[in-house]
């Protein structure tokens, strides 16, 4: 995303305006922080929402958790907390919130991305033969996914989101070697069903 310039003294404004400019600068800073958060929200809300939805399977709750994660980002950045990767940070907080919410409302954090049947891209294929092949592949893929554990699916999803293993480890709060091991097992299981 585009970088937001930091707040600056408006060319000696503080000196010349004296007491009148202090709060205005603070307000200016708040506005910039808001713009920054809004930018991150626009950019990352959809992937975070999809990830959380796959955990709780409730659109309303996923929306709320996603919003909450960004509100916490606002608080954290407002306090000057050092965040090395905003995207990982938001995913990590959203992941934890989803788990907490799952405990609170006693729903199982399923991370089921293989559940409901829905309109798939194969429906758009013009050739019936291609469509049948694609559907068959999709069915087998879903079958393969249903054999994965929640942890394995979460690792795969985060990888598909483009996170490196260290970032996945940070989000799920496990070791990097744990992530590699989990991904390896997940792919072996998938291959077993797919081949």
């Amino acid at each position: 995303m585009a970088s937001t310039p930091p707040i600056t003294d408006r060319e000696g404004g503080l000196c010349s305006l004296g007491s009148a400019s202090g709060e205005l600068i603070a307000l200016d800073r708040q506005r910039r922080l808001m713009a920054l958060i809004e930018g991150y929200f626009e950019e990352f809300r959809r992937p975070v929402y999809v990830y959380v939805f796959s955990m709780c399977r409730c659109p309303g709750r996923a929306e709320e958790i996603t919003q909450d994660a960004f509100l916490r980002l606002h608080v954290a950045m407002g306090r000057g907390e050092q965040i090395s990767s905003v995207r990982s940070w938001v995913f990590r907080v959203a992941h934890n919130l989803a788990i907490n919410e799952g405990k609170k409302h006693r729903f199982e954090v399923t991370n089921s991305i293989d559940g409901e049947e829905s309109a798939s891209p194969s429906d758009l294929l013009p050739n019936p033969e291609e469509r049948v092949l694609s559907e068959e592949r999709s069915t087998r893929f879903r079958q393969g996914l249903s054999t994965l554990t929640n942890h394995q699916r979460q690792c795969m999803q985060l990888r598909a989101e483009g996170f490196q293993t260290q970032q996945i480890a940070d989000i799920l709060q496990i070791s990097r070697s744990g992530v590699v091991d989990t991904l390896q097992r997940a792919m072996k299981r998938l291959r077993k069903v797919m081949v």
Partner: protein
Amino acid sequence: MSSGNARPDDDLLLRAALGELSEEEATRLAQCLAECPDGDPVAAEYRQSLQEFKEFYQGEFQQSVPEPPHAWRGFYGKLAAQRQHPFTLGARLRAVWGGWTHQPSLAWVAAVTCMVVAALLIGTRLNHAPRVSAHEVLERAAAAEEQAEEALHVFSGAVVCQTLEVRVGARRLTRTVYRDVARHRQVDRWSARDGGPLRQDAQPPLATELAGRFKSARLNWSDPLSPVSIQTWLGGRAKLDQAQETVREEDGVYTITLRTPASAPAPQNVVTETDFVVRMTDYHPVAARFQFSSDADEVDLTETRYEIHPVQSLEASVRSELDAPLAHQPAGAVKEPATVASEPDTTPESIENVEIRALYALHQRRADLGGETEVKRTADGVTVSGVVVSRRRKQELVAALRLIPGIRTDIETAEQAAARQTGTTTAPQSAAAIELPALEKALVENFPEQGARDAFVLGTIECSQQALVRGFALQRLLRTAPARGGTALSPEVRREWREMATEHRRDMETQLDRLFDRMTPLAGAVTAQPDRIPRAASWAETEAEVTRDLQALDKLVTRLMSASAGPVEERDPATLIRQYQDLGSRIRARIARLREEPDEHN
């Protein structure tokens, strides 16, 4: 990796498929695969699996995820509410918890502590605390209202059409309000409950009676469901804290019940109890009930319609009234808070007290840090003037000051100020003034990701500016009575003065500590060197020196961190860092002197 001709480890093959091998590992793997090609198909399988999953996840799965049911509505309102009052207890707790959500062990400690505290509270108090405070809901509702009104300002010709069912005992009315927010115009239409139209040029008697009751109770009859109106009625945060509140969450709404503290004998037409119903999804108020101290019936208001329409789509009579000059608008059509009408007492003692009381009221709302307001003594009392960011903020400050006798307020919103000063434009910044921050290289090294870098710079400059803002606040405070040796202050006011001075000084130190800590990896540590600076004659002089140094420090930090710090003479980072350390040392040494009691030096 295994040695010799053995097949490479699966871990290594997977990391190769993930593209996360170091150069050295990649070379070793290539050598190994050259000797033992068995590993190659495995790596290819991993790559294929990852690719297939990615395609499935980004294609089929993402398409099957339903859109969020509320289309992200409410987020910007919540964000605005958080911006307006980031230092409330609730926000602080949320912030602390938010910071801990990625540290499970601390989260558990916090959870256990909270449970113990909750158990103690339940043991000692029978009435349970609400999960969401009335204050928080009102704040969020007010922020959401402000946000909506700001949005309406963008679309000229947009009119809010709101229908309210009004019930007072057995009497019922339907009121339809057409509100042009951008032009501050409002037209009311009344009808009986069965839909029969009344005369358009007159209010029915019940409406006139209610307008009077609302006015005397300091409620806003032109927009009776406005959360700001409720806040104003409660007389600001201090009064709200005293009010007894309950918040119920059911059927998608918050129902806030507020009872004002019992005071005998209660004057006529004072609201003693109110229910205020706010929709949870977007914090929009949908109903209210008011119980007055007089024996009159309760007033129930329910919103049955809230829509935005272009002015062209409204009926001609409404349009013409909305377009009429402001003088022809019905009384109370433009929402404005009641102005302060206390009789001023102009004796010198009371002016000193009033001035500090005003400063204290502003201090509690963080409005004494410069910029927003200015407190001035005039021939007939004390005047608080200033420009604030929003109408809501204006009402909050006016409500807080209303409780102090002898105060005149002249506060306007930025929009009003801009309208007054038409034709003034800001000169664009010269392109030549923009150049890279002096510490650009160190910043990129420490924070390779742009987002993290932005956040760090933002936070660091914020610390510097907050310290400076506190310096200015202290300076203004010193100009008031105690610093000039005034003895006419009451003990209570004197205590308030000291409390403000201590808080400003303490916050200044905190912000400076944070600033120096953040700058240490980039510009080295700052240590105090008290023996290198001459001792100022008084506490006030020391404070003035600190503020001067803080100004210079702020410019310097901005120059070091920012891409648009404006023209400066010095460009060499090493020299700038040396200047920063000298200034920092000086400020640290002087601030140590400020910890002494201010009065002793004046």
